[in-house]
């Protein structure tokens, strides 16, 4: 078996599915049909491959982090450099795919939500490249934390709408994007940025990101002559993680480890570790793990990382967790910022704070497995956007 989902309406065990207003069903069916036909269309695939070669900068390289590894039990740490993609993260993989699908469906306008701003920047970039109108919804709190990315989106010609409802973060940006979509569905594609949301998004977004794991598997085997012992990635909604995990799901010897945002610590309640600290429920059109109270109201998440600050998670991760194929751990803000600083100082690579959670996981797992272990880590984004947050955290005057 190469995939972990059932084919009926995008269910992954009891997770996934479609929990949306009837008004969106037509658009979701249209999108599903466009995705399925594009998968089989050699012209579409060639166009996407050409964009990845000449625009994204794929294949992304593999970098061995030898000095960083000294702090991780001496295990070999191999970084899949999605941070070197155009726009600075893995997000471009999905965005280019969905933007091509938007054109295929004859739509002229895309809307997107963004937390850290990486998906918003990638969406604005693809819209500029393909001549689409682009509106990005972003929680007001996040526009403050990630003001540099707001400016980038505007420079690229997108409209950025600050969302002032609820917790004013990613969850509320998704609510607002869904309201826009319900209203403008005939002309507009909702370019969802993660492996959550109603079917077909979790499956489709995964399909656009699975290239990460496919490339990495070949690169790791060329370098070390075998499969890695573990594959690590940070998990907010879970798109970069599913992208690097997917091709390894069938390789039972390879541990898949997702690192969630533990905020101040899961025990404090101030965290965004949805699988570690949440319960099964429905949010934003899909059944998965959710941070919720006894009445089923979504609880606000907390993380130093805007990109992981989300009280839901992709349904395939919920399923991989429940069947024991993948494991999920929580990394606190402090552990993540330590790893952020360490990679910067030992390897000359400033990672995104999201990615720093995976790096903190590598320190743990490397120390557990020792020097014979090979760890593959998805270096999902670069940290330029986080310089202000990091400077504040470390007390560096600006």
């Amino acid at each position: 078996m190469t995939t972990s989902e059932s084919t009926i309406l995008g269910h992954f065990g009891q997770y996934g599915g479609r929990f949306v207003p009837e008004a969106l069903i037509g658009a979701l069916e249209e999108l599903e049909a466009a995705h399925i036909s594009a998968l089989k269309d050699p012209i579409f695939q060639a166009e996407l491959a050409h964009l990845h070669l000449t625009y994204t900068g794929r294949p992304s390289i593999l970098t061995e982090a030898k000095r960083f590894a000294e702090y991780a039990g001496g295990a070999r740490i191999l970084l899949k450099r999605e941070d070197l993609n155009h726009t600075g993260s893995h997000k471009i993989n999905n965005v280019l795919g969905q933007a091509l699908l938007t054109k295929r469906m004859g739509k002229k306008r895309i809307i997107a939500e963004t937390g850290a701003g990486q998906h918003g920047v990638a969406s604005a970039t693809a819209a500029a490249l393909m001549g689409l109108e682009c509106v990005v919804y972003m929680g007001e709190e996040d526009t403050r934390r990630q003001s540099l990315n707001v400016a980038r989106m505007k420079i690229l010609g997108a409209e950025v709408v600050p969302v002032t409802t609820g917790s004013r973060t990613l969850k509320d940006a998704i609510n607002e994007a869904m309201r826009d979509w319900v209203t403008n569905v005939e002309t507009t594609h909702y370019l969802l940025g993660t492996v959550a949301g109603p079917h077909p998004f979790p499956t489709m977004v995964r399909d656009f990101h699975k290239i990460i794991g496919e490339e990495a598997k070949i690169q790791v085997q060329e370098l070390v002559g075998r499969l890695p012992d573990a594959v690590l990635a940070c998990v907010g909604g879970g798109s970069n993680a599913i992208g690097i995990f997917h091709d390894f799901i069938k390789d039972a010897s390879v541990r898949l480890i997702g690192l969630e945002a533990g905020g101040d610590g899961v025990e404090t309640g101030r965290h965004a570790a949805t699988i570690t600290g949440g319960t099964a429920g429905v949010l934003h059109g899909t059944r998965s793990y959710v941070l919720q109270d006894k009445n089923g109201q979504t609880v606000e998440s907390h993380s130093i990382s805007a990109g992981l600050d989300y009280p839901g998670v992709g349904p395939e991760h919920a399923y991989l967790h429940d069947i024991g194929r993948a494991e999920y751990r929580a990394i606190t803000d402090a552990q993540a910022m330590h790893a952020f600083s360490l990679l910067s100082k030992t390897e000359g690579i400033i990672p995104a704070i999201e990615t720093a959670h995976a790096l903190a996981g590598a320190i743990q797992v490397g120390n557990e497995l020792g020097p014979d272990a090979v760890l593959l880590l998805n270096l999902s984004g670069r940290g330029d956007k986080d310089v202000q947050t990091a400077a504040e955290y470390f007390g560096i005057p600006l």
Partner: protein
Amino acid sequence: MTATLEQLFVKVRAENRAALIAYIPAGFPTIEGCKKAIKALVDGGVDAIEIGFPYSDPVMDGPIIQAAAEQSLAQGTGAADVFSALKCATDAGVAAVVMTYWNPIERYGVDEFAQSIADNGGSGVITPDLTIEESERWIAATNRNGISPIYVVAPSTNDSRLGKVTSHCSGFIYAASLMGVTGTRTSISSGASDLVTRIRKVSELPIAVGLGVSNHVQAREVAGYADGVIVGSAFIKCLLEADTEEDGLRAITELAQDLAKGVREGR
């Protein structure tokens, strides 16, 4: 004496008019204020009441209902308050249903939720984000407890899907008048009457039209072709904008009286 949805639609058909259905979130403007609002709506001539279960992520709702939900949740409104508001409505003698996003039902327990609706005299539940494909447990639970599962259909719902969705409905079919979220609109989209015409071809159930209706003229227009007229945001706006609770309650009674005239003038 409690009325049921079934009795209500028999009655309004006999009177050759549409039913006036009002939406109010539980716990809004306060837990007790909601019960006064229910009474004010009934005094104004509303035929049925939808009690909203306020939810943290209401993607089908516009700014007015969002604001009401936020105000209600800030006071800690939970499932028990929803059921007690439902009972308040049924005790006042009108048919009553609950309208809720799906997650609060799943969290409460699917069977338990349906049973609590029945125990408090409710006729059914409107679930705007529950698709037919995900409904198996819910349909079984509503059947077991003798309440109506009520689904929302939209102008974009194609004919074959209309047949499928409405075949699982009972009580009435909720026809969304337009593509969009809840809120008051200056005019009713022509898509509403087209949708009702299409639904009539596949179902004999009563059809109530919601989204955007806020005044006498619109109520009269919709009553011309639908069996029920649903008004939510306009009532909530009365309460949000009033200086005192008394003023707000008086305003909703007056609006209900005005709309009640409208639903009797449509044919």
